[in-house]
């Protein structure tokens, strides 16, 4: 029981930390860096480091809060985010199962493409359903989405290498002291 409560607190803290980091990234860094989707990067790295199905629920709560902080219709970011993390999870389980830096890049591109395609489709759909919202797919939007996918994928490769390196150092330390 105590373990479960502790796990819930850790997860809630994790979600809060992720969102705060994203907000700070959006406000403090120049526009090139604001296009890095650290949320997707985090989920890809978690999945590659052995996260189980519970990661989808983690994604659900993270994207739900993020959706409250975006200016478009509620549900777009939530549905797109949860389904893209689920897609990445299954893609890693079935297709790209090896643990290499290239897999990190490919999974990030896959996740981001699914996320942005769903985002645009749902944006148009929600604009049709709810009259108060407007959404149109313009060249500017497509260019921004492409840039975001590229920036996030580029960062995923060194980031995964760093995570692996740190994990190796940590496991060596554990062997030495055990």
């Amino acid at each position, binding site marked *: 029981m105590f373990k479960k409560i502790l796990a819930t607190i850790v997860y809630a803290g994790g979600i809060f930390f992720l969102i705060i980091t994203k907000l700070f990234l959006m406000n403090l860094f120049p526009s090139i860096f604001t296009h890095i989707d650290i949320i997707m990067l985090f989920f890809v790295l978690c999945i590659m480091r052995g996260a189980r199905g519970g990661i989808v629920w983690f994604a*659900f709560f993270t994207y739900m809060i993020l959706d409250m902080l975006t200016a478009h219709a509620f549900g777009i*970011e939530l549905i797109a985010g949860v389904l893209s993390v689920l897609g990445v999870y299954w893609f890693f389980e079935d297709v790209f199962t090896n643990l290499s830096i290239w897999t990190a890049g490919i999974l990030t591109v896959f996740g981001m493409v699914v996320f942005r395609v769903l985002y645009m489709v749902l944006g148009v759909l929600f604009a049709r359903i709810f009259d108060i919202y407007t959404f149109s797919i313009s060249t500017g939007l497509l260019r921004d989405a492409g840039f975001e996918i590229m920036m996030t994928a580029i960062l995923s490769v060194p980031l995964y290498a760093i995570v692996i390196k740190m994990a190796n150092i940590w496991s060596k330390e554990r062997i030495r002291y055990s």
Partner: protein
Amino acid sequence: MKKRYQTIIGISIVLVFVILLRTLGVLRPVENMFTGMLYSLTSISYDAEVGAPEHTSNTRLSSTFDPELMRAICTIDTSENILLKEENEQLRKQLNFFSRSRYQHTGADVIGRTVDPLSTTVTINRGARDGVARTNPVIVGDGVLVGTVIEVFDSVSYVRLINDTQSKIGATLLNKERTIGLVEGGYDIGVQMNFIPQNEIVSPGDMIVTSGLTDNMPRGLNIGTVEYIEKQPLEPFQQAVLKPIADLSYLTSVSVIITTTTSQE
């Protein structure tokens, strides 16, 4: 495979349920709590990025005397004074504009950007409590339009800037023909005026103002000036690339036009 179908169905049910709760307004208190809390935290980072002056910096003067430190403090204070002077100038212009016009308004501070990198929207510290409503125009300086309110919470609102990819505002060119067109964002940091008939004469430097044809948008708010014209011989329309008057990447104090009806009317 059967388990995966069950997962998809389960997730879909939860997603639909949550969206339904939001549509019914059940999640509104949670939303108000999160937006208020998170944006008050991140306003610090936004202020740091745009260089908005801190208003509580006098305590630093009580530190022990050190020439290097004092020089550094003087430099910071000088730049803060410049920023305060700029802000003061902006507010004075806004005040002049509203004293001449017939709009009811409320002043607001920009406290951050929203989390979606594909949109150019900012958060202001005024919400439904202050009378702000969806589609209210947001201005700076001497009646310069910077965006429209698109989402309102209790104490904060989201403003879609005119250079956002989804922004579309009816506008008039102040040329001889008073050409009407649509000002759209999404062209890097710039803004474009589209649907200008080919036969109309447009010159660089022409002023563009709101036409009043967009919902809730008063006529005559300044948007920008024509920088150059894009004209294809076989196209029915030409486009004018605009230079917005306001610096959209540096917004600190804005005013929301709540209603265009006058109190005397």
